[in-house]
């Protein structure tokens, strides 16, 4: 990596050594990919999506490949906040980068309790997932209507002592109103997008592929839509924005940052290239050099 190029960014007061963060749910707690490369080289890691209580997740097929993307219906399988704090945080801490706990929930109470527990633990930031489209009971609603989101963010904000990122769903009725509502309610940063609600049918079985019928679409396929959403949100809010959605390459990172993102998360690409985190970072500094970018923050929002 080229040391003469500054890749470090700052989000809501938290310094990142570079803008490439592993996206929640695609990177476990970092352990597995750390067998392949030092995941501490990433700017940060978002934990898999936590809920207050442990969850088994969904039955049936959970992942399905689509054209330039994939669908998932993992359904927030996770060990619960308490187990995470006791067991996973210490392991994640060894990586030496920014530790972001990602949390979803089914009820306002769970969100608030979970957030206050997590924010008291040794994490750097909390990312509130108000968007997971997989959990039937609730889940969805928080991420669709701006006023509902406002309420949950406000309550969580009140108990959260760590910088709070709110992760938006592209299924929101109005992504701009949603972003503004979350900002108003006290979000220190926004991240977007989560997966798009989508469907696949197994024509031989004449049945939906997923038990839950719908599942979340991610990957390169969604990048152009995600980029549009990030761009329009960045023009409307004052808090920093983390771009997510089909980011596979260093070029994609620059696109999202030119659209206004302060950093990005990479998800699905980890499955396509298990060294994606490392590779994107290496390419990013080479690309910056080629494009004459000395400090990556220079190009932020120039589009």
């Amino acid at each position: 990596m080229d040391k003469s190029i500054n890749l470090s960014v700052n989000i809501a007061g938290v310094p990142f050594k570079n803008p490439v963060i592993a996206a929640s749910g695609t990177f476990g707690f970092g352990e597995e990919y750390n067998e392949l490369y030092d995941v501490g080289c990433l700017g940060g890691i978002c934990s898999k999506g936590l809920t207050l209580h442990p969850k088994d997740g969904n039955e049936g097929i959970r992942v399905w490949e689509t054209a330039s993307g994939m669908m998932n219906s993992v359904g927030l399988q996770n060990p619960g906040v308490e187990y995470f704090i006791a067991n996973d945080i210490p392991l994640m801490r060894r990586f030496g980068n920014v530790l972001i706990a990602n949390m979803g929930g089914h009820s306002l109470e769970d969100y608030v309790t979970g957030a206050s527990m997590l924010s008291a633990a040794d994490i750097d930031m909390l990312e509130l997932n108000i968007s997971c489209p997989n959990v039937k009971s609730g889940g969805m609603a928080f991420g669709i209507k701006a006023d509902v989101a406002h309420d949950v963010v406000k309550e969580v904000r009140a108990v959260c002592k760590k910088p709070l990122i709110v992760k938006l769903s592209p299924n929101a009725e109005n992504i701009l109103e949603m972003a503004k509502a979350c900002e108003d309610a006290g979000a220190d940063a926004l991240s977007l997008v989560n997966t798009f609600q989508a469907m696949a049918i197994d024509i031989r079985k004449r049945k939906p592929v997923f038990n839950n019928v719908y599942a979340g679409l991610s990957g390169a396929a969604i990048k152009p839509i995600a980029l549009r959403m990030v761009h329009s949100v960045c023009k409307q809010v004052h808090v920093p924005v983390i771009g997510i959605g089909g980011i596979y390459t260093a070029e994609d990172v620059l696109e999202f940052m030119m659209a206004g993102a302060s950093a990005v998360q990479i998800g699905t690409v980890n499955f396509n290239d298990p060294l994606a985190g490392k590779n994107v970072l290496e390419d990013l500094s080479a690309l910056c050099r080629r494009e004459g970018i000395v400090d990556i923050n220079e190009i932020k929002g120039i589009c």
Partner: protein
Amino acid sequence: MRYFDSKVLDNQQVAEDIFVLRVERNGAEAKAGQFYMLKSWDKELTLMRPISVFKAEKDELWFMYRLVGKGTQILSLLEKGASIKLLGPCGNGYPCEKLSGKVAVVGGGLGVPPLCETSKQLTHAGVTVDAYLGFRDVLFGVEDFEPWCDSIFVSTEKGEEGYKGFVTDLLKPEGYDCVITCGPEIMMRKVAAMCAEADVPCYCSLEHRMACGIGACLGCSIRTQNGMKRVCKDGPVFLSTDLLWNS
């Protein structure tokens, strides 16, 4: 666990839709029953494809696969010298080193190839192996079991070769210290039930759609007697008594 570039040494069609791919091993490990995530594309397909180790030769890894969709189609077109990426070895594999006495390996369809390396490793561990191999119509890979097995029983559904019917009709678990099975779930369930009855331990190798292949995405989790388990990391091999067969 490594992610590395390898070269195709050979890629032969051995039966209708069935191919054997040989790649440079590059020192990679391979326990019987483990698999690799393969890809020979860049981003045209999103995911790598899980394929079991058919044979682990000194400098080569062999995979036997059926052409079923886009990924295996691309694999099937690979020519000698082509580049291919491997992630693995993935999964736990069969505990060959812990077994002794007489073991039956029971394979069906594409569950057959992984049992070849398994038979070899069992033999190396001093175990006597009988193979029960079931096919729909055409046989593949059977001769590869010969060096490692005492007896080989073969069946086809309509009796084109060997016994006519299911391979489970031939199996008598009572005579074995352990049964190892890989193949369609319906077959493995039957084998597991027979073993339960006979009080013989039975290891099953599961399949599940996978994204990461290394335990990070929880795309392949199944409910077991011991809670949620990842087929790619905690499996693909499970003791039959741990399974719930929840599909």
